[in-house]
């Protein structure tokens, strides 16, 4: 029961993020292109849906870099004092 609840909750979440498609009637799940990309390149599902929401064919390179920097994968990466000069 607990396992079913956890698995269903995550499947619903992945479905909302459009990383998989979930057919509630047949209980079948399928991967999407974006889901496969996330899996192949070890991209967090959270990051993947963040990108999907914000990066469009018309997005400018500057904004793309900005979105990339917001990935949860980089959350723990702080700029160090000695690196500030290089970044500026």
């Amino acid at each position, binding site marked *: 029961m607990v396992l079913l609840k956890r698995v*269903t909750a995550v499947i619903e979440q992945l479905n909302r993020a459009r990383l998989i498609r979930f057919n509630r009637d047949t209980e079948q799940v399928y*991967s999407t292109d974006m889901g496969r990309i996330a899996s192949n390149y070890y991209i967090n*599902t959270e990051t993947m849906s963040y990108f999907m929401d914000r990066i469009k064919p018309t997005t400018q390179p500057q904004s793309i870099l900005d979105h990339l920097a917001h990935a949860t994968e980089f959350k723990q990466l702080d700029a160090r004092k000695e690196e500030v000069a290089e970044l500026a």
Partner: protein
Amino acid sequence: MGLSATLPNYLDVAEFINADHQGTFCFDASYRPTPLKCIFYGVKEMGNAQRGNNIMNDIIFENLLRILRMGKQIIIFVHQRAATYNTAIELIEILKTQQGHLHLFECPDKHRVAREVAKSRNDQVKELFAYGFSVHHAGMLRKDRNMVEAMFHNGDIKVLCSTSTLAWGVNLPAYAVLIKGTKVYDSSAGAYRDVGVFDVQQIFGRAGRPQFDTEGEALILTPFKQMDEYVKMMQNKQTIESHLDKGLDNCLNAEIASGTITTVSEGVQWLKKSYFYQRLVKNPHAYAVSMADL
């Protein structure tokens, strides 16, 4: 065949990989090639950071003299890059106030090695070398780190102050290792947390070199209140729980992408084969599940 670090609930791991009783072996500390002597210091006045630091340095210095008199070396692990140099300097200050110990620290072949050290552009390494100390952390140039590692390996320096990166990155054993304090800044939480059991194990594993020593020494300095916790930790009394639940979305996505899971019930079956399930059944409260829900 499956292999894991020593953990108290290794039977859960055996069950998880379907190994039967006869096929399950536990190699505890008695299998170490060099027995390890663990020394725990509980420091009472850690409330005042400055005072706590001074007390720790005094304890460390006493041990330095003892270990260097045996002709051995020590690595001191601290938890911040800046603390490597600061600790070395503070210990050198104590050394300067006490006459007649410098010969214990000095490099036996200092004139030759000093020429090598002079080529480095790292002022800290240069400054500390005269006292038989050095530093090592991820912020240093690869070149300087290699030099420090080689110097320690050759016995040109006696005391190495390092961040935990050395414990994970390079195979540099020493007769003795020491962990100075157990508070470490966790940038993902934005707060201080205690050094974890795996870091301590990894550091303790550096102590004792089978080809040179008949035993090793591991020292840990903690606040007095936490000493008991660390003693327990090193006796392998801490059960290892699963963290699969925190990354379940990524794991399920990968399994669905690879076609392992095509229906909800296959997902449930998949989860049932996990270590997470082994622990969930035994300790549901750790996973926010009540006994009744199981």
